[in-house]
């Protein structure tokens, strides 16, 4: 359904171009939830924004293709992409409180999306918006409330209601639960799962939280410094991570299960993207770094749908 091929996005800063997304490729199958995981600044949000072409300057897509149902989003005209946004592809942004309009009622904000994309009378759109709000578990009495009257979890639900108002085929969730309390997070995750089956959605979930991905995603890609270092189905990636970065990331994640043991953090910090280290970008922090890692960028190798970019893998 969605196929990203050799995507490159650069941010043209005064100190030179920052390679925020560097030749990444992945595909998302219909009705799947695909997880993209990485630390802050690794380029995961930029990937999400590029899929509806809202990467802000100085950022620009400089290469590659993004296929959505066989048409290339990168080469679409403004009019074509505008019709797609909010209708076929929808996004739930990080921090709903900033994405909602503070001076417009929730009902109006949902209605607006429907009216924009579909030729329906106002009353019908309003009624559908109320259904939509009920679908995410908020009483339709709250249609006339303003965002500030909602709690954090409710705002995020309202965002989901807006994003799914026009029955999108593809939903992008950019850190949907960051900043929410655990109980609210759990409620939102079950809501998303529920909507996915009811509306036959395909989804891309972007987060830094390994456990959120474990709970919701079918396939997962690990991003580091603008590149995908490993991707596989969730069970095999969590069960047998191959790339040293994935291993370290999973190893550094405390859990409520198992014995209480000392964990190891990853030494150092992610590299700058303007002049990343030569060869493999993880090499300066990698415990297994070899000479070749400094010289050559590792190629992506694949076996049984498990793709890794690391010189350790033969």
């Amino acid at each position, binding site marked *: 359904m969605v196929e990203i091929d050799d995507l490159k996005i650069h941010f043209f800063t005064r100190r030179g171009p920052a390679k925020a997304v560097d030749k990444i490729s992945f595909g998302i199958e219909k009705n799947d939830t695909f997880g993209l995981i990485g630390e802050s600044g690794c380029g995961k949000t930029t990937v999400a924004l590029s899929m509806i072409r809202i990467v802000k300057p100085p950022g620009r897509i400089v290469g590659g293709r993004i296929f959505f149902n066989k048409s290339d989003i990168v080469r679409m005209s403004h009019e074509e992409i505008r019709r797609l946004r909010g209708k076929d592809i929808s996004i739930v942004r990080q921090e709903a409180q900033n994405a909602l309009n503070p001076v417009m009622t929730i009902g109006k904000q949902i209605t607006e999306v429907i009216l924009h994309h579909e030729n329906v009378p106002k009353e019908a759109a309003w009624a559908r918006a109320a259904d939509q709000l009920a679908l995410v578990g908020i009483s339709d009495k709250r249609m006339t409330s303003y965002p500030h009257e909602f709690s954090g979890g409710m705002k995020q639900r309202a965002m989901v209601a807006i994003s799914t108002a026009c029955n999108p085929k593809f939903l992008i969730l950019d850190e949907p639960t960051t900043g929410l309390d655990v109980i609210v997070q759990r*409620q939102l995750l079950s809501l998303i799962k529920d909507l996915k089956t009811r509306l036959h959605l395909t989804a891309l979930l972007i987060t830094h939280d390994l456990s959120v991905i474990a*709970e919701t995603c079918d396939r997962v890609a690990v991003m580091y410094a603008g590149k995908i270092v490993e991707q596989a189905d969730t069970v095999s990636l969590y069960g047998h991570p191959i790339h040293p970065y994935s291993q370290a990331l999973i190893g550094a*994640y405390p859990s409520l299960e198992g014995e209480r043991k000392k964990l190891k953090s990853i030494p150092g910090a992610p590299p700058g993207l303007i002049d990343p280290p030569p060869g493999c970008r993880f090499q300066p922090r990698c415990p297994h770094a070899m000479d070749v890692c400094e010289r050559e960028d590792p190629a992506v190798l694949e076996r049984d749908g498990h793709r890794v970019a690391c010189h350790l893998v033969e």
Partner: protein
Amino acid sequence: MDKDVVLRVEHLRKYFPIRRGLTDSILSRERRYIRAVDDVTFSLKDGEILGFVGESGCGKSTMSRTILRLIEPTSGCVYYEDDEVTSLEKERLKEIRRKMQMIFQDPFGSLNPRRTVADTLRQTIRIHHLVHGKVDESSLIKKTLEDVGLRPVDEFWSKYPAVLSGGQLQRVSIGRVLVLQPRFVIADEPVSMLDVSVRIGILDLLWRMRDEFHISFLYITHDLVTARYICDRIAIMYLGKIVEIGKTEDILSRPVHPYTQALICAVPALDPTADAPDVPIKGYVPATPGEARNTCSFYPRCPHGLDQCGEREPQLVQVEGDHYAACPRMAF
């Protein structure tokens, strides 16, 4: 106070008045309050890391600020060694504040962007007159940076916050605390804004500060997972009250309070093959907590809700050993 107790908090309360509208004043309606911290009692033992876990709005941050008297409490006592903090004079308060320090959540906001790493520490040293003379000052800064893991020191010495990563910034702000050689430190969500790969490094640093410098910690967080990693004991807070407190293993493996059980159950597992259990409670944390009440504050959301729960406020009751819970199902 016991020798091995660093801090004792007794019946601490902080009520924030809700502003009255004009009609309320004319009709002289009674002033209402939000009970952000409501009758909290606990003690922190020497060399202990005690976690306070709760959702946003449960009063954990207000509590920590009240303990340090960054906010004046409504009532209650805070004993630090032989001093009662809430009634101290300004001068003495400044003296003992050196020994009671705080690490804030947001290292990007808590450091001055125009000061280098060394200047940040130098300022703290000068304010508290820790050492005199430039040579001693520099060697103290050097030692502190090494202690918090910013090595090689020369590389970080004259860097500005803008070029450091979140983990490095948090180490600078921990250094600013450590240089004062405090007796106890309140760490308010010290890792929640940091990336997963560096969180453990910061938590291990807190651990080392406890072991090497005998610092006791209150670890304030919304995250049970990191609390499990670092804490000796955990207190669960709900609407300004401690609802359960005990050793970390006891709280996590044998939780008694339905709220604790729900919190544990809501934490997503790292295992993709595990099924996510449903959270057994309903509704949301109320937006304006703390009307005066004679019921269990968790009663409206509780799956067990007995009749007695609506009739009186439960107190902390011993479950076993150090494990206490405030649930009427314990008392009856």
